[in-house]
């Protein structure tokens, strides 16, 4: 009788858990991609842990549920590593928990499940359950505006500095030419001018003496 009941249970389980069964989910793990050399092998112990995590998620999600590890059925484990699982309902005979509940439970506890296996959303995939992607951190002021503001202030400061410097130079030049004009207007003080340039403003020391026109005593024949 025991053998018969066991085989009935086994057949029933096989009926419930098969690829594309109702309320069944496919799981795919990429352990080597995630962990490289530290990758662990997928064996019966890992499967036990997985069953435990699913049962844990169901219990956390709905306090009514008293899901046992034996309620979680795994099948079609491949070398990839991928498999299908269902969660049976112990209160009702030979039925599975609705997929929507399982989905909600897994979603709620995704982080815990991932960390138990040292994997992430990408390397531990529940194929029909989409994960919410974490939004990127956005600062209150966009970073580019800050840099823009800094550069803008520098450029405007440079422009103002150059313009003010130019105005000051302009005023100085105007004052100088006004002084020179007032000097030239005074007829009593004859200002010796050469080509319209007042001789005082010329720096005679800096000028070159043109040797051709310099008075050379030897040019004049001696009397």
């Amino acid at each position, binding site marked *: 009788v025991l053998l018969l009941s066991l085989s009935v249970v086994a057949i029933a389980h096989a009926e419930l858990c098969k690829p594309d069964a109702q309320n069944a989910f496919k799981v795919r793990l990429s352990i080597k991609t995630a962990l490289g050399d530290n990758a662990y092998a997928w064996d019966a112990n890992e499967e036990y842990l997985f069953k435990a995590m699913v049962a844990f998620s169901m219990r956390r999600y709905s306090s009514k549920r008293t899901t046992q590890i034996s309620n979680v059925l795994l099948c079609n484990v491949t070398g990839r590593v*991928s498999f299908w699982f269902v969660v049976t309902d112990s209160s009702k005979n030979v039925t599975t928990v609705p997929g929507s509940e399982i989905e909600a439970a897994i979603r709620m506890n995704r982080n815990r499940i991932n960390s138990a296996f040292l994997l992430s959303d990408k390397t531990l995939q529940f194929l029909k359950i989409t994960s919410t*992607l974490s939004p990127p951190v956005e600062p209150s002021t966009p970073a*580019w505006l800050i840099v823009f503001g800094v*550069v803008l202030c520098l450029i405007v400061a440079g422009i103002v500095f150059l313009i003010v410097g*130019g105005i000051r130079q302009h005023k100085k030049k105007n004052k100088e030419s006004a002084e020179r004009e007032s000097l030239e207007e005074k007829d009593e003080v004859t200002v010796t001018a050469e080509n319209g340039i007042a001789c005082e403003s010329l720096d005679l020391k800096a000028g070159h003496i043109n040797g051709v026109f310099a008075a050379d005593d030897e040019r004049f024949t001696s009397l």
Partner: protein
Amino acid sequence: AMEKSRPLWDNPLQFIFACISYAVGLGNVWRFPYLCQMYGGGGFLIPYLIMLVAEGMPLLYLELAVGQRMRQGSIGAWKIISPYLCGVGVASVVVSFFLSMYYNVINAWAFWYLFHSFQDPLPWATCPLNINHTGYEEECEKTSSTQYFWYRQTLNISPSLETSGSVQWEQALCLTLAWLVVYLCILRGTQSTGKVVYVTASLPYCVLIIYLIRGLTLHGALNGLIYMFTPKLEQLSNPKAWISAATQIFFSLGLGFGSLIAFASYNEPSNNCERHAVIVSLINSTTSIFASIVTFSIYGFKATFNYESCISKMILLLMNAFDLEEGSLTADNLSEMKDYLMATHPREYAQLLPQLKNCSLEAELDTAVQGTGLAFIVYSEAIKNMEVPQLYSVLYFVMLLMLGIGSMLGNTAAILTPLTDSKAIAARFPKEVISGAVCFFNCVIGLIFTMEAGNYWFDIFNDYAATLSLLLIVLVETIAVCYIYGIRRFEKDLHTMIGHKPNWYWKIMWTFASPLLIISLFIFYLSDYILTGALQYQAWDATQGQLVTKDYPSYALALIGLLVAASTMCIPLGALVTFIRKRLERESVSTI
């Protein structure tokens, strides 16, 4: 009273740096590598160097000599050569004006990318999430994150030219900043420009050297270099290769805008412009070749990266579909495994077939890009995959800025020098006010290019505002100097300036070779436009995530015609106006 002397460069080095800063621009980085790739790789250097010697150096020497001799901006210089040629100077100013209107938008984009480089991760490295955070933005999924950042987040481009959309305030801010920077550099004339060109001329080379070292050490760079530089000598028989070489030399040196005349007019009369012309044109071409080495190594890196991620995707797809063990499929055994799987599981394999792609390195290398696409999409894609991408991003966009601002300095000099030379305007307003007015006016008009359809208008200006007009202007310039002014008189002027007469090589180039080349280029372009029929443009389709070809609406075609006519008509109009004025003077004299 003492006459106000013309401002001069502090030393000849400033003049060389100004010319290099102006000539070495974005075209060296984003146009020459494309041409090199399209027209025979290493073999393209042959027509390029021939055109440099036959067309580039003589025309550059001619413009510099004219500016140095006449010591005036373009309008004044051509008026001295012959009063009927004042239209040539005006045409140069008009073309420079059009150029400065749209060119600074590129600097605005460079600023935008530069400011966004101070983030981790770079904003163009990943796609943004969609509204309910379940996946990525749809448009970004269809195309790549770098293209999405360019077309959507930078330009916010509209689907066609007709839908103008609104002005993008972020781009408008960057454009204003770009114009403020230009204003700062030209504010004091040669005093300020002379110092700025030390930086704008040398900084790009520093960055290019850093990128050369970085580029050559990237994984897969060698693939790009070998593929691009292997000469395909059969392209030499393609006339388009020679025409592209001639066009590239011509536009790369910036002839005909009046900028070179303006720069040379601030020289000492005894400056050796012959030597400087040879130096500047050689440096310009060498920079193009240097920049293409960098670009090809970047191409190689990007193509190898894409090829390897394509292979990884295929491996993942096959592994998941057939539940194979991890590590059983590698890049080496991929093709054998594909055949094996096709044989053992034909039905499932057939189902998978539409998603399976044949990854090919050659196909990735063959994607040839030029223009803003190369500078802002391809390079940013390569940068996001490097280590410390923020550093390389900042360096790269600072280099683009230096190149762009250097060219803008030349452009604005071409506009401002005639304005400050003319006594009517210069006597009433100080040069700070004139520069400010020009910058402000250009900035306001430039806001058109910051609208959603702005990039389409940009393409119109980029393709048509300067091309035909410049060819005509330089042709008239060469003929004017050789035949109206007289080659003998020009020779004597050069002898006075630099101490020796130009040898027979220059004379033959000026009188025959260069004008013939320009005429043939002109005829080619005209016939090309006429034969093509309807002019078309590339529009971005957000639903497909790629560019589609569309026809220009009639008002865009009218604008194109107006752009070309506005500058070319100045030449005959100028001659006509002078003729009428002389007639009136003669009549008024004779009646006395």
